């Protein structure tokens, strides 16, 4: 192999590999993850999934042991918190039953078809991204189970993320904490809409469209129509935010899903095509921006079919 005099073989190899890496990055970025890169990823992930399954099987008791140790510390507080939560949930259940009856009556009056339940696929988290910078999880269900790219993923708390790649037997989920993820949300209390952006972990950043509506700590944010079906809990506001006319209204929110310890998830069999919503690769814009008079339109539907829009 030709090399300039004074450069030893390892340095020449290093320079060659660096150049090769840069060429790969360029090709992959130009192909937007498709093409050769996409095919290689699919192939390697398919081949590596059995290795990861075996490693998960072997390491699960070790993880369980360490988790048990850490859980032991807070078990008394957890018990007290759960009792309070049960009492609260019982009260909410009674209220919900009453509201459900009212909704059924109103639906009958308005002759609206009740929204269909979305099909779901239960999956187990097999693996994480190779570094802390990768906010992704690998799940053990793939194309053969009906999963396709863009489907929303939830756990018992709320939205976990979105499927970004699928092989026959597995799928990669990008978490809502990833800095490239943006989710259109609606404040459940006021109906105002905004955008939640990942910050790499921990809290999410919430930016509201209507800067005149204050946010209160504890406000629940649910998905607005668009890439995800409407109404999925996403996060809860952690800091009050005062309205300032002419300025953006920005605050922080904590994910409702327990992302750091997510084990089992559900993939919603839903794609944004089902509501015909616009949206770029990573960015989602809500279908209904707030009205100028401060009110919002109301959408009925979970996204399993076109939502019915009612003027206020």
């Amino acid at each position, binding site marked *: 192999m030709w090399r300039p005099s004074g450069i030893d073989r390892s340095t020449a190899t290093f320079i060659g590999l*660096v150049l090769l890496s840069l060429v790969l990055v360029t090709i992959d970025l130009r192909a937007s993850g498709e093409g050769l890169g996409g095919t290689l990823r699919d192939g390697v992930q398919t081949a590596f999934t059995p290795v990861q399954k075996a490693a998960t099987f072997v390491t699960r008791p070790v993880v369980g042991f360490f988790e048990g140790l850490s859980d032991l510390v807070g078990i008394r507080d957890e018990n007290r918190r759960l009792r309070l939560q049960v009492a609260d949930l019982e009260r909410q259940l009674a209220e919900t039953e009453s509201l459900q009856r009212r909704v059924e009556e109103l639906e009958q009056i308005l002759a609206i078809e009740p929204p269909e339940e979305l099909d779901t696929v239960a999956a187990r988290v097999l693996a994480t991204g190779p570094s802390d*910078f990768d906010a992704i999880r690998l799940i053990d269900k793939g194309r053969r189970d009906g999963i396709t790219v863009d489907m929303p993923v939830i756990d018992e708390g709320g939205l976990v993320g979105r499927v970004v790649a699928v092989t026959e037997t597995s799928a990669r989920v990008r978490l809502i904490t990833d800095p490239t993820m943006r989710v259109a949300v609606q404040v459940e209390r006021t109906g105002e809409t905004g955008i939640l952006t990942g910050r790499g972990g921990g809290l999410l950043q919430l930016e509201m469209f209507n800067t005149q509506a204050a946010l209160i700590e504890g406000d629940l944010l649910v998905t607005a129509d668009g890439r995800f079906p409407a109404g999925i809990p996403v996060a809860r506001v952690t800091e009050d935010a005062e309205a300032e006319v002419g300025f953006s209204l920005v605050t922080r929110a904590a994910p409702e899903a327990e992302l750091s310890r997510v084990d089992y998830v559900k993939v919603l069999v839903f794609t944004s095509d089902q509501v015909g919503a616009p949206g770029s690769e990573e960015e989602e814009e809500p279908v209904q921006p707030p009205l100028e008079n401060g009110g919002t339109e109301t959408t009925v539907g979970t996204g399993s079919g076109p939502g019915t829009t009612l003027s206020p």
Partner: protein
Amino acid sequence: MKWRRTAVAVALVILGVALQTTLFVRLRPFGASPALALLITLAVSRHLGRVPSLLVGFSTGLLLDLLSETALGLWALVLTTVAFATVRLRRRFEDDVTLLIPGVFLVSFAALAMYALLGTIFGEQTLADAQVVRKMLLPAVYNVILTPLVLPPITRLIGERGGRPGWNL
């Protein structure tokens, strides 16, 4: 013999990547996990020949790239650089704890910083991450903690019998 050691190194790397992506799904003290593949790359580069070390570093990085959603070649570039730095410095990277521990910390931290910087240049928004410093610092600290558990067994498996690290291909 040389190829046997390289094959063992490749097997170790695959094991490291499998453990890194599965063991730390839920086990993440303070929201971070060790950079195990990086530590194993560093460990095997202390003993393999110069060119095999670089090739193992490149292949490990490529495997990480293929298992993530980042641009193909980012980790390959970083881990090739880690292997090159280790190959150049390994005469000083001997089993002297006072040099080895800071060395592992510095190489790990610098590699993760390089990844964050390159990721941002290539549109991954890694520096937009609110926890970017923590995600560079904690894995480097965890790598230091794991050093006594990882480096000696690898030295025993692929180190030159009774010799110093650093034989050339």
